[in-house]
């Protein structure tokens, strides 16, 4: 089975904070990690390879340092890593990104399944996975929490929805986006890390992918960011002190005031 995993290197947003004094982002010392949802996609891909045999190719569109993310993916079992990097891609929104990644996948050639994390923790749009599926004109199933069976060129999966889950089936080739309920990603092994260190990571530029220059980067992106600002901080209110019973009584009085007739 040929599996392609699309990953993104993101800043560790769990560590990104607002400086309360200046109301701006504090980004110093924030390390770059593989987008957490992508680690589940990588793990699932490696598990599929272990079950069915085949190859896992991991790709990422990003600046040169995204190579570290690809090596990390190789250290847990991916076979090959390809970095898609070019200044021309800078400023891409989700349309241009999914277009670029699709061009890369077309260059890789045949595949059975494309796996993506459900969304990236910096953009949070969840648009690139379905975007790739559309550019490639292949079926998709999003929010996959379990791959039940792959047989006769079809995949049957469980899909997480608000009220519970659905069981859906798709023909192959297809694209699946996965949620964290699907597996527990493994830690790298020493041999994996050594393999990753010496692995050759291919880098493909816009020219290598025969991209239409009108469809990539800032120029190819329909959406444009016009303003970035700090959210107005929600101010803290009243702090209640005293013995527990006192505090509770005070609180109820305040609420009666705020919500007449309700409490």
């Amino acid at each position, binding site marked *: 089975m040929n599996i392609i995993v699309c990953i993104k290197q993101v800043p560790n*947003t769990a560590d990104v904070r607002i400086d309360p004094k200046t109301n701006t982002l504090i980004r110093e010392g924030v390390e770059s990690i593989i987008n957490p949802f992508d680690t589940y996609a990588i793990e699932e891909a490696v598990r599929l390879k272990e079950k069915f045999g085949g190859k896992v190719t991991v790709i990422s569109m990003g600046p040169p340092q995204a190579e570290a993310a690809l090596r990390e993916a190789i250290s847990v079992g991916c076979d090959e890593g390809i970095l898609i990097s070019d200044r021309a891609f800078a400023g891409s929104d989700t349309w241009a990104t999914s277009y670029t990644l699709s061009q890369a996948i077309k260059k890789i050639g045949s595949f059975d399944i494309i796996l993506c994390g459900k969304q990236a923790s910096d953009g949070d749009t969840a648009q690139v996975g379905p975007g790739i599926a559309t550019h490639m004109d292949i079926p998709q199933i999003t929010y996959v929490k379990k791959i039940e069976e792959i047989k006769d060129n079809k995949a049957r999966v469980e899909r997480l929805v608000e009220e519970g889950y659905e069981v859906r089936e798709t023909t192959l080739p297809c694209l699946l986006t996965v949620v964290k309920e699907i597996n527990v990603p493994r830690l790298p092994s020493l041999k994996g890390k050594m393999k990753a260190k010496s692995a050759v990571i291919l880098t493909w530029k816009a020219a290598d992918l025969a991209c239409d220059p009108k469809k990539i980067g800032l120029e190819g992106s329909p*959406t444009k960011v016009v303003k970035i600002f700090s959210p107005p901080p929600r*101010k803290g209110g009243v702090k209640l002190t005293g013995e527990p019973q006192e505090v509770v009584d005070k609180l109820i009085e305040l609420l009666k005031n705020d919500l007449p007739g309700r409490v």
Partner: protein
Amino acid sequence: MDNIRVLVDKCTGCKLCVKACPFSAITIVDKKAVIDLAKCNLCGACVGACKFEAIELKKTEDSGQRTELKNYKNVWVFCEQKKGRIQTISWELLGEGRKLADRLGVKLCGIILGSDIAERAQEIIERGADEAYIVDEKELENYLDEPYTNVLVELINEYKPEIFLCGATTLGRSLISRVAVKIYAGLTADCTGLDIDAKDRNLLQTRPAFGGNIMATIITPNYRPQMATVRHKVMKEAQAGKGRKGKVITKKFDKKFYASRTKLINMVEELEQTVNLCEANIIVSGGRGLGCPENFKYIKDLAMSVGGAVGASRAAVDSDWIPYSHQVGQTGKTVCPKIYIACGISGQIQHLIGMQSSEIIIAINKDPDAPIFNVATYGIVGDLFQVVPLLAKKFKAVCEK
């Protein structure tokens, strides 16, 4: 091509731009700012931050419109249905859509796909739509990516709406992403604010980024329709105006548009026997401060005393103290209740994102420096194991009156 550069003689290496850049694209080399063009998204945050006007951002003329903007008119709202019932997110979108349509002086239209849904048209009109488009086919009874995408693409190409809104639900996000790529339109996800730019009639789409640490305003100047998804409970529902009149248009398409390479085999419901978190007016949430899964009974008791729902922080869910369906926050649910009571929750930004638009936030935590107190309307520094039961008792007494 847009051009950004550092005016080296003006730059003092003060690092204000480094701190402002959301993409880590600026570093200081030999006391001067250097912008990594591969990372730069030309958002201009650094230009604003620089006190010495040492960064120049030249926006060259756009390569031009990709679509004939003037041919696109009206605001469309995708009304999501499940088992034939329209989901309340649709009323929120119609509420917001009405405001936008009025600002632009155009029509508000609702579109619904499904089977046996002809009667839903009137509901859509009553919630403020001037026109309701119905595609009523057996094949569309349940959501399938390809048929729904094909139908929407056909409709958009035929009727050319200038704005298209959809709920940021599992269905909405899967569907609209496909549509946007197919028709080469700009799509902004999870908008918390929508407005019209008076000058050029562009839709101003505001959304959080970087886990909610910054807000970005986005436009789609050269492409139509301008597409946006909005999360549940962020906008206000449109009120139902009984007997309101409007136009109903029923569409049918060739069977080939309903072809699907995926199949829905089964639906398994896994709702707990408690109030649906997103619909609740009062939510009581528990976090790491509870210490162990058994202590969630404090939360459940308090929630029951006010007929509220039980929520949880990610820490509690990750420790397996309570199922994920209760998680409130960036990777959980966004909630907007009248009262949100956070017990033993420190208030990390990822949690705040999920509940900070609650009308009243009450925080109970033994750590006086917990960040939750910065957003709490009423903060109680104390032992939740004492305060919560007393609160539950008091609420029960008051509710019984």
